[in-house]
C-alpha cells in the first residue's frame, strides 16, 4: 500500500468506528422523526470528515468519495456528502452545509435544509451554483427513505459561484457511492439473516434457492462498488460526465436487484419498521432517483456513443482501465 492509501485507510477505519458506534437503530429512527444527530455531527466535524477532499486538506476527491461510500454503508443520516462537496467547492470550514436543486425561486430537495448554515443550489447542465446564507426553510419534507429533503427560499439577490466539473455530476457521483455503500450493508444483512434464521430445521442459508439469490446479490454488489469507484477516478477528465453516467445507471440497476432479493430473503421480518434493513434499502431506492435516474444517465452516455459512431464505440469503452 502506498502512503496515500494507508492514510485513507486510517480515515476510513476511524469513520467506520464512529459510524458503527452512533448509527444504531435508535439514532436512525430518531433521524427519521426529524431529530438531527448533533453528537454524531460533532464527531464527524472533530475528525475533519467534513473537509476531506477540500483544498489544502491533504486529501483528494477520491478520498472524499471513499468516505461518502463509507457513510452509505451505515446509512449515516447527515448531509455529509453535501457538506463535503460544499467545502470542496468553497472551503467554508466549520458548519453544516447542504445542496439542493434550483426550481422556481426555491432550492428544493435539500437534505437537512432545516439545520443548514448555508444551502447551495445547482441546476442541470450549469456550472453556476447559488449560495444562500442563513437559508429560510419554506417546507420541510422527506424522501422515501424518510431523509429530510427541505425547500428553502432562493432570494433574488443570491450570489452565484462557478463550479467545475459540472456540479450535478459531482452530486450524482456522490449518490453512486452512497448506493454502493448501502449495497454492501444490505448484502451483509442478508448473509447474517440467512445464517441465523432456522426453517425446516436448518439455517435457510443451507437452501440452494437462498444461496443462489445471495450469490446474485454479491455479484451486483461487486459491480456496484467497482462502478462507483470508476466514476470518480479522475474528476478533471473530459470522460468524467460519461463515467458518472455509466456508474449512476449501473449502480442504480444493481441496488434494485440487491434490495429486492435481500428483502425476499428476510421474509416478513425485513418488512417491519422494527428491522434495520429498510434504513438501507429505502435509501438505496431513493438515491437511484436523485440527480438523474438510470434512464436519464443511460441517455447521456448512449447519445455520446452514438455521436462517436459504431466503429468508435469500443475505443471509447476501452480507453481507460
Amino acid at each position, binding site marked *: 500500500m502506498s502512503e496515500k492509501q494507508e492514510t485513507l485507510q486510517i480515515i476510513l477505519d476511524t469513520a467506520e468506528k464512529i459510524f458503527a458506534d452512533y448509527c444504531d437503530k435508535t439514532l436512525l429512527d430518531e433521524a427519521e422523526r426529524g431529530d438531527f444527530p448533533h453528537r454524531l455531527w460533532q464527531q464527524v466535524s472533530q475528525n475533519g470528515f467534513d473537509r476531506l477532499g477540500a483544498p489544502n486538506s491533504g486529501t483528494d476527491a477520491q478520498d472524499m468519495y471513499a468516505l461518502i461510500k463509507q457513510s452509505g454503508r451505515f446509512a449515516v443520516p447527515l448531509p455529509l456528502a453535501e457538506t463535503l462537496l460544499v467545502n470542496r467547492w468553497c472551503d467554508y470550514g466549520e458548519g453544516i452545509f447542504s445542496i439542493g436543486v434550483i426550481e422556481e425561486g426555491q432550492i428544493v430537495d435539500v437534505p437537512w435544509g432545516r439545520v443548514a448554515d448555508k444551502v447551495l443550489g445547482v441546476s442541470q447542465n450549469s456550472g453556476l451554483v447559488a449560495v444562500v446564507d442563513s437559508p429560510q426553510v419554506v417546507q420541510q419534507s422527506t424522501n422515501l427513505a424518510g431523509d429530510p429533503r427541505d425547500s428553502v427560499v432562493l432570494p433574488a439577490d443570491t450570489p452565484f459561484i462557478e463550479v467545475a466539473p459540472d456540479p450535478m455530476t459531482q452530486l450524482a457521483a456522490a449518490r453512486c457511492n452512497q448506493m454502493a455503500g448501502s449495497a*454492501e450493508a444490505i448484502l451483509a444483512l442478508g*448473509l447474517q439473516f*440467512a*445464517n441465523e434464521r432456522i426453517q425446516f430445521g436448518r439455517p435457510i*442459508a*443451507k437452501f*440452494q434457492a*437462498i*444461496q*443462489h439469490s*445471495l*450469490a*446474485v446479490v*454479491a*455479484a*451486483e*454488489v*461487486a*459491480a456496484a*462498488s*467497482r*462502478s462507483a*469507484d*470508476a466514476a470518480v*477516478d479522475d474528476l478533471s477528465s473530459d470522460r468524467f460526465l460519461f*463515467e458518472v*453516467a*455509466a*456508474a449512476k*445507471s*449501473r449502480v442504480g*440497476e444493481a441496488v434494485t436487484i440487491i434490495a429486492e432479493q435481500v428483502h425476499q430473503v428476510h421474509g416478513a421480518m425485513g418488512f417491519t419498521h422494527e428491522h434495520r434493513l429498510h434504513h438501507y434499502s429505502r435509501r438505496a431506492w431513493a438515491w437511484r432517483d436523485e440527480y438523474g435516474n*438510470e*434512464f436519464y*444517465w*443511460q*441517455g*447521456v*452516455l*448512449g*447519445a455520446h*456513443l*452514438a*455521436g462517436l*459512431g*459504431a*466503429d468508435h*464505440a*469500443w475505443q*471509447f*469503452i*476501452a480507453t*481507460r*482501465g
Partner: protein
Amino acid sequence: MLQFDRVSLDADTEALRDKVRTFLAANKAHFPRPNSDFSSGHDPEFSRKLGEQGWIGMSWPKAYGGSEQSFFERYVVTEELLSAGAPVSAHWIADRQSGPLLLRYGTEAQRQAYLPAITRGESYFSIGMSEPDTGSDLASVRTMAVKEGDQYRINGTKIWTTDAHRNHFIVCLVRTEPAGENRHAGLSQIIVDLQNDGVQIKPIANMSGSEDFNEVVFEDVMVPADRVVGEPGKGWVQVTSELAYERSGPERFLSAFRVFVELVRACGQQPSPHEAAAIGRIASHIMTLRRMSISVAGMLQKDKDVVVEAALVKELGNNFEKVLPEIARLAAPMAARNSAFRRSFEQTLLLSPSFTLRGGTREILRGVIARGLGLR
C-alpha cells in the same frame, strides 16, 4: 470481503493495444464475423498470424515460446481481438487453458513437446470433460484409462467437445482408478492426439446450425503413459483449478459485443431517447465488467486466489451477454430489420444458450460464489 481493486492499465499495455489495432486493421479479410463469440471462428491462418506477433501464450516463459508478458497485456490483446470479432477459436483453448495447465502440472518433456507449437498458433487443443452422463457433476466421469505397461488403454465417450474435428489434441479427464468412497480421487488428466490415436469424432450440429462441437468416442485407444498430466489420481484438483482460473476473461462478457456495435450503427448519430438509453445501458455494463475483469487480472498478476472473484465476473458477464441482444432487439429501429444488425442479432441469440453453460453453468457458479460467502 469482495475486493475488486482499482487497477489501471499502464502506458506499455496501452501501447500494445495500439499495436493490436494496427494488426487488426491490416488483417480485415479475416473478420468481422457477425458475432464476437470466442468459440465459433476457427481460422488457423489467423491463429498463425497471431502466433507470429507473439500473442499466443503471452505470459509463458520464453523457453517454451512465450513472451513473458503480464496478465494485463494478455487481457488487452484478448479484449481487442474479441471486440473486433476476430476468429480466435482455433488456438483459444490451448492458449487459455491447456497451455497454462501444462505449465503448472506438466513435465518438462511435455512442456517442450506441446507449448512452442501452441505459441506459434499451429497446435490446437480441446477440452475433454463432459460425457453423455456427466455434465455439471464432473466427478462422475466414467471414461477409463487403464495402465498396461507403459501405455494407457482408454475407453469411454466425451461430448460437447468444441472443435475436436479440427483440433490436434484433447486433454481428457478420465478415471485411472475405479470410483471409490472419495469420488474426487482416482481421476487423472491425459493428453490424447485427436488425429493419430484412433479416436472416433462425430460432429453434433448445434441449434444455430453450425457444427462446432462433437462426440468423441474412445474404443481401446492406446496412448503412451507419459501423456498423463500431473500426478495420476490427482486430476480433480487440477481440473477445478484449471476451471477457476479461466473464468474471468473478456470472453465472458464480450460474446455479444458485435450486436452492440451494429445497434449503434443502426441507430445512427442522432438516436431517439429510447435508442440512446439502450446504447448507454449496454455500455454501462460493459464498462463495469471490463474493469472487474482487469481487477481479477491484477490479482492473477499478484498470484492471489481468484476463485470467487472470477466466478462473480463470469456470473455477471454471461448473464449480461444474454441480456444484451434482448435490449438491442427492443431498441433497434425498424430499418435495422434487414441489415447487419439482424444477422448479428440472430446469430448471437442462437448461440446465447451456451453462454451460461460453458466453463461452468450459472448454477455451478452460484454455488461457488455461495461457498465464498460462507453459505455452504
